């Protein structure tokens, strides 16, 4: 049993997206939060922002480092996880669940084909997860 949900898709920049109909819920992976260490700040786009696949969506900061988050798919931001601004440490605790970042209305579902499956991502990040 993997920590990486089978129904999510992944990027090599360590984001995940769960696609349900025309909506994509986006987050960062367990591996990403582990690499960053204690997350202390999350900068997310405003509602209505249109983001493009592979372009910066926001940023996550740990004590030591700033890391850009890239949009795994293109779309319009229709929800932002406001709870993270008061409790960014949730990203360390539940990166694949409660600490989702944004929901996007997809404007090009075909893009999903370029993403990694859970098995591919697991192989990409290696044995340590």
């Amino acid at each position, binding site marked *: 049993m993997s920590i990486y949900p089978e129904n999510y898709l992944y990027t090599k920049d360590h984001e995940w997206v769960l696609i349900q109909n025309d909506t994509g819920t986006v987050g960062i992976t367990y591996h990403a939060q582990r690499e960053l260490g*204690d997350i202390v700040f999350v*900068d997310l786009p405003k509602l209505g922002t249109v983001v493009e696949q592979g372009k910066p969506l926001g*940023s996550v*900061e740990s*004590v*030591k480092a*700033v890391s850009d988050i890239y949009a795994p798919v293109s779309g319009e931001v229709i929800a932002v996880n406001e709870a993270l*601004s008061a409790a960014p440490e949730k990203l360390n605790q539940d990166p694949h669940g409660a600490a989702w970042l944004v929901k996007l209305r997809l404007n090009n579902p075909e893009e999903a084909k370029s993403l990694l499956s859970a098995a591919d991502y697991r192989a990409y990040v290696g044995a340590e997860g």
Partner: protein
Amino acid sequence: MTRPAAWKRSPLDAVHRRLGARMTTFGGWEMPLYYSSIVEEHHAVRRSVGLFDVSHMGEIEIRGPEALALVSFVTTNAPERLSDGQAQYSALLYPHGGFVDDILVHRVKRDHFFLCVNAANQEKDYEHIRAANRWNASVEFASERYAQLALQGPNAPAVLQKLTATDLSTVRYYRFVDGEVCGIAARIARTGYTGEDGFELYLAPDHATTVWDRLMDAGQAFQIRPCGLGARNTLRLEAKMALYGHEIDASTTPWEADLAWIVKMEKPEFLGRQALERQQRQGLRRKLAGFEMRGRGIGRDGYLVRAGGRPCGWVTSGGPSPTLGKNIGLCYLPPDLASPGRDIEVMIRGEPVPAITVPTPFYKRIQ
């Protein structure tokens, strides 16, 4: 992880790997960044006790009847005021007044001084001191003979006392003794880089693992944690202790860096003195100031600072303060803006984010 052969490794390298440390490179060394979490390690030091491997730090020994003359000439502080077993924070300056390094000067004996210097600067410091040695003092590059451990936090004395016959209550702040820790010869200094009580131990590298393990065992009852350079940095920033390459470097002077207290202008002669005198006459163009973020964002090292919409300085060190729960930092500003209570903006990814200058240190322990 690939490891270029050029990175130096601590005598405790195997211990860090056994503990699963996340490693980083610093000053030419590969050292632990953190073991579990920078924030948890930070809190362990503020609330109880933490153990750091700081074996990357360099050591230089100066001996001989003229040792004091040389140390006094190359440092800004007053080594002539030290007694045996006393340490002093000081600086090595270039003739133009910029920092070669910030250092700790320990007087072992009247004719023997022991300097603790920054990892990245140790060879440079050694050459600098040797070149200034117009006396007959012996200058020895001694880094290979020492490992260094820092046991820091309010419970550090209780932990160390279990392992040493030296009565630690007699070793006051910035004093040291040559004693033993679990039967191993060690220089036990009540110094540190965290803003807490604690000790820095200098000992032979071959014994470093033994002493580390015994300290970790002795600290169990106090929930001791191994701590990495990440927590060392957040702790020293809260205490407003300078970091070479950030607050100080060859282009900054002690006046600018708010370190006038380590400069003794009454000394008739020391390297950099003339330049400092000139800068006193001419006035400063910038001064180190503390700030707190007011808007959402973290001002980090190197970020531009603006006031009244115009660029006026830069962040030297910035980040979250685990103790205060705020985002803090140090920055260089024009002197008229460097006093507390001034509105500034830190440019974060192209956006100005409000901040305010504040008194420093950000954190001071209750004595």
